[in-house]
């Protein structure tokens, strides 16, 4: 049991201090934009803010029924919203929020709305939200979460107080992952590399055998890449994607069950809404899976680079060290950078909705070229 809800946020002294003093002095703004890399505790901070606002004690006691319900995610006046579309928020979703904002709270003295991934508020959905964000009723606090201020439309930013969250230092992140999962240090390091340093995602990665298989598949492919011919590369890419999709298939099965259940109880309209939401979620998962193998590729190439410079203790993928050491003995810095550039290009292609298979194939050929002639 924590004595104070703000204590749960390691490494965010400044942001927490700012929010805490706002609550204690009763000068909470109507809208905040929390900015910081993924996984640094923006959502936890938003939750702590809700605790402090709902709890009778302005520091947030962390142990009363209201605080418990906020922590369990069952408080009716704390609304956590995620984008439901592939590329962001849907206009209907925003309208739903607006409707609720203008109703009185259910049990707390105020209402808190947390919108994850505010970059997903694009032209239409953002416009639908502007008026609400600018002047919500007096008892409403809206918190937008985003990784970068520049990703969020300026019309939204100008209506919020921006609170910056600093990145969690890698050593602290590593410590947290080990503490929460009990994994070996090398595994935790590899998981963090695959998850772009995002703590919750690294923890989920360690719990998913499917995602770990996908990681091994790409590492295996990279190891043999230099000696493969074009046909092998294409086959390898196809197998890799099968591995990436395997965890997605697990989700698909779970969704099918949920939908079958839903059809028995829900109206046709609601069930088809759910089906659409599921489809969007699947697309999102698949993209996430692809992004993960790209992160693994990047971190492996980085390993090659640090090994070639003799900084052996910095490698992230200890289990693939034999292959990276082989490459490291011949690779030059410009060549490694060129290979990393290929991964970056692949990422931007994904953002343009190119078919995942094509993107991965192109990326592998680009890297192969570098590995074959690493000078």
């Amino acid at each position, binding site marked *: 049991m924590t004595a104070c809800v703000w204590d749960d946020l390691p490494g965010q002294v400044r942001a927490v201090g700012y929010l805490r003093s706002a609550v204690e002095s009763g000068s909470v703004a109507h809208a905040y934009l929390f900015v910081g890399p993924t996984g640094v505790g923006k959502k936890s901070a938003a939750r702590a803010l809700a605790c402090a606002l709902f709890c009778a004690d302005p520091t947030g006691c962390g142990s009363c029924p209201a605080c418990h319900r906020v922590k369990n995610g069952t408080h009716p006046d704390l609304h956590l919203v995620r984008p439901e579309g592939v590329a962001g928020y849907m206009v209907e979703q925003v309208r739903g929020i*607006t409707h609720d904002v203008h109703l009185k709270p*259910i049990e707390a003295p105020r209402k808190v709305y947390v919108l994850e991934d505010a970059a997903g508020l694009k032209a239409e959905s953002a416009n639908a939200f502007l008026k609400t964000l600018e002047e919500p009723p007096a008892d409403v606090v809206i918190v937008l979460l985003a990784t970068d201020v520049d990703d969020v439309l300026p019309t939204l930013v100008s209506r919020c107080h921006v609170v910056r969250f600093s990145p969690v230092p890698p050593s602290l992140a590593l410590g947290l992952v080990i503490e929460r999962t009990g994994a070996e240090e090398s595994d935790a390091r590899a998981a963090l590399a695959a998850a772009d340093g995002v703590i919750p995602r690294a923890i989920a990665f360690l719990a998913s055998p499917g995602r770990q298989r996908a990681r091994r598949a790409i590492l295996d492919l990279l190891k043999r890449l230099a000696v493969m011919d074009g046909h092998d590369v294409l086959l390898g890419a196809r197998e890799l994607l099968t591995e990436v999709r395997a965890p997605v298939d697990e989700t698909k099965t779970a969704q099918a069950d949920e939908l079958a259940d839903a059809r028995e109880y829900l109206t046709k309209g609601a069930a088809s809404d759910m089906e659409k939401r599921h489809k969007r979620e699947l697309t999102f998962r698949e993209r996430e899976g692809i992004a993960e193998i790209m992160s693994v590729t990047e971190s492996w190439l980085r390993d090659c680079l640090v090994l070639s410079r003799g900084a052996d203790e910095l490698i992230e993928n200890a289990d693939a060290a034999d292959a990276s050491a082989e490459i490291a003995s011949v690779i030059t810095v410009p060549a490694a950078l060129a290979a990393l550039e290929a991964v970056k290009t692949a990422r931007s292609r994904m953002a343009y909705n190119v078919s995942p298979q094509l993107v991965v194939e192109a990326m592998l050929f680009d890297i192969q070229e570098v590995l074959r002639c690493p000078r």
Partner: protein
Amino acid sequence: MKVSIARGELLDALSTVSKGLSSRTTLPILSGIHIATKGDMVVFQATDLEISIKTSCKARIDEPGQAVLSGRLLTDIVRSLPEAAVTLEVSAGGSALVTCGQSKFTMKTLPADDYPKFPEVDPSTTVSLPTETFSRVVHQVSKAVSKDETRPILTGILVVVDSGILRMVATDSYRLCVREVAVEGMSGDIELVIPGKALEDVAKIAGAAESISLGVSENQVVFTFGDTTFISRRIEGSFPNYRQLLPKEHATRVIIDRAELLEAVKRVSLMAQHSTPLRISVSTAEHTLTLSAAAQDVGEATEDLQVTPEGEDIEIAFNHAYLVDGVQVAEGDTIALEITSPLKPGVLKPADGDGFTYLLMPVRLG
């Protein structure tokens, strides 16, 4: 749980709480009706997290317990059953058996513990009034409630009880409807904005009860009638100051038979489809009010009504659908149409008395 209830009473209870089922929800539990035994009564509950309804009816209880059953399906089943005792038996394994005469239905149940708790509301003020008056007033003003979510406050009805007078006001910014009635023996003062849909639902399901009590708390409003409790969340914000919109004077006043006007407006509206305005011209010399509409490329319609005008000759145009709504819900057999100028709102009132006001924005004449 095992209970037996007369089919009629069960159906009444189910149809009452069904108003609280949300049709668009993606949470299966909210598509269910919560059924629990309490003493020798069975309590039914439904909620869509915005409104919550609870009602109860007498039953023979063989085994107490609670369950959540699909609301739509159960209501359909009970509706189709013959008039006899219906037995509802829920086993621990998650299935329910509904029997009535020779018919048997089994259906799946939802986990009862997941069902949201019925809100506890402690009203600070309570007002009691006859259901008939309440329902009539709601019916009259609800036409003017806005459906546009961009101004949420207008999707509600302003309800005021002040020294024995009940007043409801609704507007969608194209028209405004104010209805005032004196209610005998009503005490207490309240002023709040209630979602229009919730009021309409209450008016619909409260039909049989004689009186209805309206309790107001900080965030919610509670209606109690018969065995039923209906809770809705309140809308935030302040209602527009409608008084300053009501014109103080008028240039022309026309007394018209309400039924005649309604028929005539409906007929002429056939030519006033979509955005074509319905034109009204008043001739004081000839004692006529002419309704006309012309749809381009389709045709024209005109109708003269014999009326009693006062003041100047005038011409004005309205949206036909809004005019029909106003005439339909107006009080009295004869109504007065008051016009100030073609660019200012027209007002419909009862010919004598002023408990009802329907203000209507004009459409610019081409």
